[in-house]
């Protein structure tokens, strides 16, 4: 690796460490907040997904196309055992 390559990789490492120390926790907290909102959103339209209209179906059917691509990941998250030691950061 040349001198320029070494310097640029050092710069990248330093910026990533700074990002990790300063912002990663913040990003994780925001993502978790979004996760809880998404749980609520999908549960709202779960009825229509299963064929049982719970809310007025017009609205939930319009929302359905946005929710369906996320269903697999949502199932993972929703059904995963969540221990109290998992919630240190929100």
């Amino acid at each position, binding site marked *: 690796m040349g001198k320029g390559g070494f310097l640029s990789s050092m710069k990248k490492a330093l910026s990533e460490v700074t990002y990790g120390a300063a912002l990663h926790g*913040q990003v994780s907290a*925001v993502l978790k*907040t979004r996760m809880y909102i998404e749980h609520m959103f999908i549960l709202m339209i779960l009825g229509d997904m299963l064929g049982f209209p719970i809310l007025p179906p017009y609205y939930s059917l319009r929302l359905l196309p946005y929710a369906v691509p996320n269903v697999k*990941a949502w199932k*993972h998250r929703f059904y995963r055992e969540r221990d*109290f*030691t998992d919630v240190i*950061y*929100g």
Partner: protein
Amino acid sequence: MVFETPFGITMVGIVIFLLTFFTYSRWVDRRVWSPDPKRPTPAHMYMDGVEFFPVSRFVLYGFQWNSIAALGPILGPGIALTFGWLPAFLWIVLAALLIGWVQDYSSMFLSVRKEGRSFGPIAYELLGPTPRRLLLGFLLFYLLLINAAFLFVVATVVDAFAGAFWSLLVLVIAAVITGHLLFKVKMPVVQVTLIAVVLLAIGVVIGAIFNWPPPGTLGTAPYTLWYVPLIALLVAGAILPMPRLITPMNYIAYYTLFPAVIMLAVGALASIVTGVKVNTPAFTSFFGPFATGPLWPALFVSIACGAISGWHSLVSTGLTSKQIDVETDVRPVGAGAMLSENLVGLTSLAAWIVLPAGTAVAPANFPRGAVTLTSPVFGGAAMAPYLAIFFASYMVGMAVTILTILGRFWRVTMAEIFSGTSLNFLGNKYVATVLGFVLPVAFVLTGSWINIWLYFGGTNQLLAGFALLIVGLYLFSLRKFHWYSTIPGLFMMVTTLAAIAWQTNVFATATINPVIRRPDGTIAPFFPQQAPLLNLGGPGALTAINAFSTVMGMIMFVIGLMMAIFFIRAFLRYARQPTQPTAT
């Protein structure tokens, strides 16, 4: 001689940290865990873009280090100086070599091999349902104690350097502004960071100029009125959504952590030129004052995160392990971050040992030592008032950021325990949060922050012992080399139980004899700091408050002993099994 200045211990310590990282940790990594870069990690297997997703090792290193950095390595070395600087130094480097990183790294690797599970489910799987419940109860007491110790220290430092409170207030305002700019205005991160750092610097300048009221105006710790605004702030932080206050505050606090550690390291390394001398004795006595106890076990529970800390295993398994990209990243992230934390402990020790001989061990003396160490390099006497507030704010910031996270953790743990029971109201968001910060005041009223700190250190390091033994148990079940984790785990378990037992004995003695009769016929409280409480409520009040701490100590000791029995039974159970039941 090289050890006449802090240069000696700092240089030797840094060399040992580097050697540990490049030799022993590498050997354990290859010999025991055999990381395979092709083996899918939980971040890839369960990628959901929320908790499970691969993150660069540099980002995770920074995150892990910032998450485990707290007050322990800053204040702990000061208490350890009771026995002289040499035992404190030896414990920091020995722990760095053989114990501290072992816990952080191994618990992280265990979680990676266990599908990213956190501490609770792993304990459940390896030990059974009862130890998991015991762990839950233990964590409640642990959180109470850590809140008590940190609150006490913050109030004491703020009482001595009132400017640090105004600086903290600016930090809180800066956090709210930063959160708003980032998430509502969506301003670019670089600009927000610049604003945050400028606000932080303004906070230090305001603190240095407006260093009011003078010490003791609002009552001296532990009876100080500083608790009222501090608890109000912490309750708000624990209740508000994290992006509103906690996460921006952690984000900004990083910009004091990093410069503070660098400045202390530079000051210590430059001491050979600046001539700042080590003033404390290398060794005093094996037997410290009765309230502290003998060197073993007191020394091993005093330095906390600067040597080893159970909190780290919760962080390692709680989030970091879920985002490890490849298994080969575990060592730089887990061991690397812990060795950096050892450096925080070492640089803090350097600041403590330059204080004049005979200086009382008090939290507020750390900024004074840090100023002595760094001011010859950074601006001289003219900068001393600013440096004092900067280092006091560093202490306060490290404590407050972790306290708000602990407040949330306490609230969730309370909800877990009391939801669906007849005491459901204790799991209520507001009730639990307020209790989490008000109950610790009962500990604080004992007045002896060193005893509370040693209680906290005992539970914290006992948790580390649990983590090390869980790792040892897992490796034993696979018939792998487990002694590198089991032996430190046994040492920590025995040492911390002894430390908790000693402190329980101290509080029991204070309960039975709340006052001591002097030769002149006057009476004085067992803990000198309880004099105002004695005047207020008489010996009965002292008995009640000391009995509270005694009972807490007894409960923690019993839980620790029961966990030890469960570990022995589990080891025996796995020893009888010819197969490898937990192989993954």
